[in-house]
C-alpha cells in the first residue's frame, strides 16, 4: 500500500502559516480570492490540487512555490556588542521613507539592505546579532506563507497555540501518549468522552484508518458538530463506518429513550413528505437502538476521556462495557481532578494500577554556536491518568 499524497481540495479546512509565524485556517472552496490581510491576496484556484506543506510567495496576485529556508551558517566572529552604545542604535531609515520605497515598488530585500546599510552600528554588531536583525526585518516584509499538512499532530498543535482552553490543554505530546497508553490501533473499538471539540475523536479516527469503532458519549441531546474533526479533511470512509454517538441519557441501560413517532397517527392519511420524514425517523431510530445495543454488548478495547465531568463518575458509567485487560486513559488540565479520581479507583478492584503522569516537552534551537532550549515554552500540557480493567 502507498498512502495517497495529501492535496488541497475544495471543501477542505486549510491551515496556513503566515509570514508573521502565526497560523490561521480558511474554509477552502477553491473559488474567489483568498486574502491574507496585509500580506496580500491571491486567487483560491491557485491552491486547488496542491500538495499540503509547501511554501509560497505571493507575487503579483499569483502563487509561486518557493523552497523553505535552510540553516545559514553564520560564522562566529570575534566581534562583540562591546562598542555599541545602548542609546545609539537609532534607525536611520524612517517609517515614511520605508513606505515611500514600498509604494515605489522597491523589493523587500532591497529595503532590508538599505536599512542595514543605514543602521549606524550594524558593522559593530556580532554576526549573531546581525542575523537576528535580518530575520526580524525579513519577517516584516516577505510575503511567504505555507500551508500546513493536516496531520493530527499539526491540528493539535494549531489548536493548542490558538486556544489551549478549548482543547482542555491537550498538547500534541499528551495526545500522542493517550493513543499509546490506550493501545489505539486499526480495528480497535473505543469508548470516548470528547469535550475537546472533536480533537480526541479526530485523533482516534486517524489511528483507526477506517476500521473499528469510535463511540463518543456526548452531553447534548443530539451529537454536536465536532469542529476540529473537519480540520483533518478525512475521506468519508475514514469516518462513516467508524464514528457513532450517544448521549449520557441514551447511553443509559436503565433509560428507555422517548422517540418521535415513526408511524402516522391512527387513522390519518400521510403526505409524501410525511412518509419520507417517517422513513428517515425510522432509520435514525434503528441506528440509535443498534448503537445502544452495541454499547451494552460491551467488550470495548479502551476508554478515552477528555471531559469536564468528574472522571471517576464517567469511568464508572463506561467500565461495564470495557473488555478485561482494556485500557482507561483520562486527560485533565488539573492534577487535582485526577488525584481525586485515582484515589477512588484505588479502592475499587476493577481498576489495576491507576497511575498519573505529567507529559513534559521541550523544544530546542539548534544553530551553529547558538544551541539552547527555547527561551519561552508551554507551561502545561495537562496530566494523564491511566489504568487497566480487571
Amino acid at each position, binding site marked *: 500500500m502507498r498512502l495517497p499524497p495529501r492535496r488541497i481540495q475544495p471543501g477542505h479546512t486549510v491551515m496556513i502559516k503566515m509570514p508573521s509565524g502565526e497560523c490561521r485556517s480558511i474554509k477552502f472552496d477553491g473559488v474567489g480570492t483568498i486574502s491574507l490581510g496585509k500580506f496580500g491576496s491571491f486567487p483560491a484556484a491557485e491552491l486547488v490540487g496542491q500538495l499540503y*506543506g509547501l511554501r509560497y510567495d505571493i507575487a503579483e496576485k499569483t502563487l509561486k512555490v518557493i523552497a*523553505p529556508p535552510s540553516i545559514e551558517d553564520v560564522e562566529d566572529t570575534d566581534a562583540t556588542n562591546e562598542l555599541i552604545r545602548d542609546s545609539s542604535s537609532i534607525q536611520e531609515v524612517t517609517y515614511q521613507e520605508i513606505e515611500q520605497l514600498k509604494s515605489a515598488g522597491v523589493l523587500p530585500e532591497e529595503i532590508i539592505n538599505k536599512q542595514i546599510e543605514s543602521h549606524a552600528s550594524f558593522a559593530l554588531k556580532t554576526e549573531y546579532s546581525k542575523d537576528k536583525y535580518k530575520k526580524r526585518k525579513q519577517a516584516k516584509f516577505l510575503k511567504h506563507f505555507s500551508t500546513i499538512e493536516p496531520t493530527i499532530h499539526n491540528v493539535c498543535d494549531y489548536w493548542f497555540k490558538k486556544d489551549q482552553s478549548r482543547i482542555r490543554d491537550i498538547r500534541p505530546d499528551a495526545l500522542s501518549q493517550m493513543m499509546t497508553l490506550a*493501545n489505539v490501533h486499526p480495528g480497535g473499538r473505543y469508548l470516548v468522552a470528547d469535550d475537546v471539540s472533536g480533537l480526541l475523536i479526530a485523533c482516534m479516527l486517524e489511528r483507526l484508518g477506517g476500521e473499528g469503532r469510535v463511540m463518543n458519549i456526548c452531553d447534548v441531546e443530539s451529537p454536536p458538530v465536532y469542529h476540529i474533526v473537519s480540520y483533518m479533511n478525512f475521506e468519508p470512509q475514514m469516518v462513516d463506518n467508524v464514528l457513532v454517538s450517544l448521549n449520557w441519557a441514551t447511553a443509559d441501560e436503565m433509560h428507555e429513550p422517548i422517540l418521535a413517532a415513526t408511524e402516522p397517527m391512527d387513522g390519518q392519511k400521510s403526505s409524501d413528505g410525511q412518509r419520507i420524514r417517517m422513513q428517515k425517523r425510522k432509520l435514525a431510530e434503528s441506528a440509535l437502538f443498534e448503537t445502544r445495543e452495541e454499547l451494552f454488548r460491551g467488550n470495548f478495547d479502551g476508554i478515552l476521556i477528555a471531559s469536564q465531568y468528574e472522571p471517576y463518575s464517567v469511568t464508572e458509567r463506561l467500565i461495564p462495557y470495557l473488555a478485561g*485487560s482494556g485500557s482507561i486513559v483520562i486527560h485533565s488540565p488539573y492534577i487535582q481532578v485526577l488525584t481525586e479520581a485515582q484515589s477512588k479507583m484505588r479502592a475499587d478492584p476493577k481498576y489495576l494500577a491507576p497511575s498519573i503522569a505529567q507529559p513534559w516537552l521541550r523544544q530546542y534551537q539548534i544553530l551553529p554556536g547558538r544551541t539552547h532550549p527555547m527561551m519561552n515554552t508551554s507551561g502545561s500540557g495537562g496530566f494523564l491518568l491511566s489504568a487497566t480493567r480487571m
Partner: protein
Amino acid sequence: MWSVAPTVASGDTVILWLGRDIIQALVVTPGKVFNGRYGAFPHDALVGVLYGSKVFSQKERGFLYVLRPTPELWTLALPHRTQILYLADIAFVTSMLAVRPGSTVIEAGTGSGSFSHSVARTVGSKGHLFSFDFHQDRVDKARIEFLRHGLHQRITLAHRNVCKDGFGLLDRADAVFLDLPAPWEAVPHVKLALRSDISARVCCFSPCIEQVMRTVAALNENAFSEIQTYESLLFPQETYSNPAPPPVSQITNALKESEIKREQRRLRQISNAQLRKRKRDEDADDQNLKRPRLQDPAPSDPGSSSSVPQPVPDADPDHRAPADLPDNPPKIVVSKTIPEVRGHTSYLTFAILLPSEFRPRSHDATTLDTNIEQSATKQEQSVQ
C-alpha cells in the same frame, strides 16, 4: 498481532502482572509451570480464563493478573537487550512522523524491538515496517519475536549496517526513524529511501547534543527542511490521601495543656517531697534533682544555645505535645512527582523532505547520491 479473543488460549503470549515492577511475558504452554515470587502457576490454569483476570497460585499463597499484551506492556516485560525507547518518546515520534494505518516506515536499529512493536501496531495490516540492525544477535532474537507475535508479515527485518550500506530501498518510505550512534552517516541514504511524491519525514534519536548538532548539519546539507529538535518525557506522579495539615491552633492548645499538666506534676512532686522530707530529710535534694533540669540551658549544643527552655532527654509521652496524633483529622489528596525520575532519554530531531522539485538548495555531493541510488535499486530486491 496478539490474540484478540476474550479468553486466553494455549500458545498465546500473555503478560503476567505481579506488581508494578514485576511484569513478565509468557507463552502459555500446557504442562509447564510458572514459578514466580508469589507461588507456582500451572500454565493449564491460565487456559480459558478471561484476559484481565486475577489468577491465584496453586496453593493460593499469591496471585497475579493475566493481561493481553500491548507494545507498551511487552516493552515493560522485555529483557533489556539495548537501552529501550521510552513510552513518551515512541508516542511523540509516532505523532511527529505522522505514522498512521497504511504508513510505510523504516527503523534502524531494531534494538529491543520496542519501537518496532509500537509502529507495527499503528501502521496496521495495510502498513509496513522495514527494520534494520547491525547486530546479528539482535536481528535473530527480534525475528523469533516478530514471528511469535504474528508481525512477520508487517515487518521486514534485515541485518545490515545502514550507515555503510544504505537501506536498499528507493522512494519507498513515508517516514524513517534512526536510533544509531552516528545518524548523520545515514542521512544521505534516508533521502533515497523516502518517498519523493510527498512531504516525507525523518526522526533521529540521539542522547547527546553533539550528535544532534552533526545530524542537523547533515539534514540541512541534504535538503531536509523544518528541522526541529525536542525532548519528550513523562513524569510519574505520587499521590497520597493524607490527613490534612493541622491548623497551628491544635498544637498551641496541646502545648498549653501540656504546660498545665507539667505544673500540676511539679506541685505534686513538691508536696510529695515535703511529705518525704519529714521522713527522710537528708534525701530531699536528690529527689528534686531531676525535674529542674528541664529549664536549664544546655550551652554545649551549638544548634540550640538559646536562652529559652531546653529539651528533656527523658521526655515522657505527656510532656511531648501530641502533635502527630490528632483525632480523626480530615483527609486531603496530595501529589508530587516521584523523587527520582528519568530526566533525559534522548533528543528527538525531526525534519521533512519535500518532494524533490520543492527542496531547498542542497550542498550534497551528487556523485555519492548516484552511486547509492544504483546500488540501492539492486539491493531493494534482496530486502524484499
